[in-house]
């Protein structure tokens, strides 16, 4: 009965209004919760214009952000690309907060709005709420109020100390953002606003009542022998909790020249860096999860006869754009597309659970043929990050499908060598190598604070543990080091130590070379 089927449709043409949005949302929600068993934060969907989308882009996707020229730079840059038609805007933007905020662009068609709702409001939302990294390392309910605090605080500092004073601190802090996260230690929870207020009052009180007269330095004793000096060094390292990988944290707590408000600025930058750290580790999974969810829900809606063939085709068109993976020799090749890889892996898990081959039974004895693909996926989404997810679930079938191969590249050699391809002997190697390439901690330069003598020359010593001989780009290294010096106030040096041989590969310092 065609008439009945037509009336069952959620929407008929590409225009949208709030009523249609809401009706479609409800239909999607039913499938997401009842059939996929997703578990989500309450949703808040906000309609914005393309210009506002550009704004949101340039302030790293946060609805509230303090002012800084680098966001203006990003805006100018993005807008330029957008106006020239080099880059489209994302259809959606979603914020890991409680309630979960999803931006819908007003220019989208209704079919796109449905797709975005399923993708962001359920896929990403579920992932944010359930993945262990997000659960442990971010605080979705506090982030928005924290950002509000940060914005207000920085504005207040600008009023009080001048824009340029604030700017130089933020510039330096931004340069160290990558070195401003705890990778292995859980950061303290964001305290509630009231507590923060109290802590700040205490700081201000201390600032006002501080008197240098009360300082009593122990008189330095002469005649150290080397053993004693060594013991001293290890003592003071212990006292400062060295080595420390979180440079910003170290500077915030230890720098002798920073005013309390400057420390607070470092803390703000650090908290934001930390908040985004899980996102960087779960790109494949997060996008894969969202894409898988929207794909499944859209197909389900189509099966139920609730969206028309035309709309379905439109959605499939953008879906296949999103999961398109060009080959390495294609001029469009930008690297492995996290949407494509994540989506393919999750579909693959579904296939292994429901329709395994004998190879799959060898590789995945626990899930092959179990039929419980929903549970398997929900479990994977909750308990993995990209690296471990790929290590556990990338199947030979998928390696063949993507025709993955492994290249080794040695500096100085004019040729790359093909180490493994998609065959029996290569599967393991490729899988391990691919997983490792998604390990953010392993791929980022490992730079730590190793020593400083606060009572002596206060020379801050950093150490770069060089892995596989990958050094730092010199120009940006020196520029960044100057930023460290700016925050530290005294000379800073950086030594590159080979992680395996302990050889010193290079040394640089902000001190004048005569020393």
């Amino acid at each position, binding site marked *: 009965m065609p008439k009945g089927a037509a009336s069952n449709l959620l929407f008929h043409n590409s225009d949208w209004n709030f009523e249609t949005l809401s009706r479609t949302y409800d239909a999607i929600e039913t499938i997401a919760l009842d059939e996929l068993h997703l578990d989500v934060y309450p949703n808040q969907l906000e309609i914005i214009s393309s210009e506002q989308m550009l704004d949101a882009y340039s302030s790293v996707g946060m609805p509230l952000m303090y002012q800084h020229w680098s966001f203006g730079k990003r805006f100018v840059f993005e807008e330029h690309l957008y106006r020239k038609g080099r880059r489209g805007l994302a259809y959606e933007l979603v914020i890991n907060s409680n309630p979960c905020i999803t931006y819908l662009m007003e220019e989208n068609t209704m079919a796109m709005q449905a797709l975005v709702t399923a993708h962001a*409001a359920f896929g990403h939302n579920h992932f944010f709420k359930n993945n262990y990294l997000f659960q442990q390392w971010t605080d979705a309910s506090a982030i928005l109020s924290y950002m509000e605090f940060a914005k207000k605080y920085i504005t207040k500092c600008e009023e009080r100390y001048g824009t340029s004073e604030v700017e130089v601190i933020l510039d330096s802090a931004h340069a160290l953002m990558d070195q401003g996260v705890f990778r292995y230690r859980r950061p303290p929870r964001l305290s509630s606003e009231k507590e923060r207020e109290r802590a700040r009052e205490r700081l201000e009180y201390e600032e006002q009542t501080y008197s240098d007269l009360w300082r009593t330095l122990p008189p330095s004793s002469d005649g150290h022998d080397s053993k004693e000096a060594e013991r001293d060094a290890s003592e003071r390292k212990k006292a400062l909790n060295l080595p420390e990988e979180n440079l910003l944290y170290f500077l915030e707590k230890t720098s002798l020249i920073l005013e309390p408000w400057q420390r607070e600025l470092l803390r703000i930058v650090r908290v934001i860096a930390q908040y985004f750290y899980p996102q960087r580790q779960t790109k494949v999974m997060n996008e894969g999860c969202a894409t898988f969810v929207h794909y499944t829900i859209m197909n389900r809606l189509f099966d139920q006869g609730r969206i028309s063939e035309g709309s379905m085709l439109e959605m499939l068109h953008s879906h296949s754009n999103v999961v398109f993976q060009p080959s390495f020799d294609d001029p469009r090749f930008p690297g492995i597309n996290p949407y494509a890889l994540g989506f393919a892996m999750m579909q693959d898990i579904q296939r292994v659970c429901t329709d395994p081959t004998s190879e799959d039974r060898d590789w995945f004895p626990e899930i092959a043929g179990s039929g419980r693909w929903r549970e398997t996926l929900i479990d994977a989404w909750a308990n993995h990050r990209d690296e471990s997810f790929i290590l556990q679930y990338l199947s030979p079938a998928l390696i063949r499908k993507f025709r993955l191969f492994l290249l080794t590249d040695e500096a100085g050699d004019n040729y790359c060598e093909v180490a493994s391809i998609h065959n029996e002997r290569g599967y393991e190697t490729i899988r391990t190598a691919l997983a490792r390439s998604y390990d953010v901690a392993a791929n980022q330069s490992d730079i730590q604070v190793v020593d400083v003598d606060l009572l002596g020359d206060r020379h801050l010593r950093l150490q770069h543990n060089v892995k596989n001989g990958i050094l730092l780009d010199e120009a940006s290294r020196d520029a960044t080091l100057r930023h460290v010096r700016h925050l530290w106030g005294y000379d800073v040096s950086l030594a590159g130590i080979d992680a395996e041989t302990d050889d010193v590969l290079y040394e640089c310092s902000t001190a004048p070379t005569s020393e």
Partner: protein
Amino acid sequence: MPNFIDRRLNPKDKSLGNRRRFLKRAREELKRTIKEQIKAGKIADVDAEHRVPMPERGVGEPSFQPSPGTGERQYVLPGNQEFTPGDRLPKPSARGGASGKGAGTGESEDDFQFVLSRDEVLDLFFEDLELPDMVKLNLKESVAFKPRRAGFATSGSPTNINVGRTMRNSYGRRIALRRPSRADVAAVADEIAKLEAESNASGAHHKRIEALREELDKLERRRRRIAYVDPVDIRFNRFEPQPLPNASAVMFCLMDVSASMGEREKDLAKRFFVLLHLFLKRRYKRIDIVFIRHTDEAGEVDENTFFYSKQSGGTVVSTAIEEMLRIIEERYPAREWNIYAAQASDGENSAGDSDLCVSLLHREVMRLCQYYAYVEIIDERETEIFGTTDNGTSLWRAYRTVDSEWSNFQMTRIARPSDIYPVFRKLFARQPTMQLRTERR
């Protein structure tokens, strides 16, 4: 039920403040780049649009980044068609081989450029020349205009009313609205008068007069209602500013390139010539620039050689003036060309030659030139000594005699960029009001 919020009406431009901050920061960098472009480019190029690459130094955001050219890496790539393990592929470029990761995020920023308009370039260029704003505006005004008749307009001043066109409109309107003409009214009035004169007292006669009176009344009212000339009819002559056809000018740049003219001196000279060029460009449609440099002999050269060649030697200033005269004779007849000359020198000249220069100027050059400016570039330390007194180099002392005799000769000394503009203004202030002002200072 989800929570929908319509944010479209929220205040826009949330990042406007950020963009302002960025542009403020970028400005310093742009200024530097413009300076460099002008220094390296041609004089005539100053007065044009400029493309400036996205500034890097002032607005760079460094961080610790792995260097692409070092170490061992592994890449997993999709789309293998023919490779088997052990195959060796040539690296496509120095940047980290066939990597997806080596293609850094910043690469595309290279082709992002600011396009600065003429005015913006001039603003940046003039910034440390310390121009008073009024004059800066004056300099940027591109051409002089003369009004030219160009059709009609519905608004304008009473002196410009075009009577013919206005009356034609009025006539058309009167016809269209059927305004009774004076003849019509007169005809009816005549008939009434005639009938009244007959003094026939029949009822039909009275009725006829009655009807005619009514008719006359209607016509009168119509005439009153519909004006003879209505404001909508009025047309004014319209004038359009037309660029003034202007003559050609040639500008002679004479520079001493003896060893004492170093980087600083040449840069100052160049800035002076640039300013002169901008100034003349405003007055003349076409200007030629002739570069003559001299050591102990002079020659015409192109701009590049003029400013950047390292050739050096002794100094005989008169050779340059002779060369200039030769070129004027050959290519720029004074009847057709307005001739300007600017001479930059540090004032050193070989003994006895200064007198020759002066006599050349007296006899020939000053008759041909609209204007001859002599700029002496001196050391910053010397400003204190020479700035006020009349003693100085041999050339300076010799030129004093020319200065007193010819009103179109000017001479002055500069030591740093900020001197250039005031000096320039002094040299070229020819209107009497301006003259007064400069004298009083």
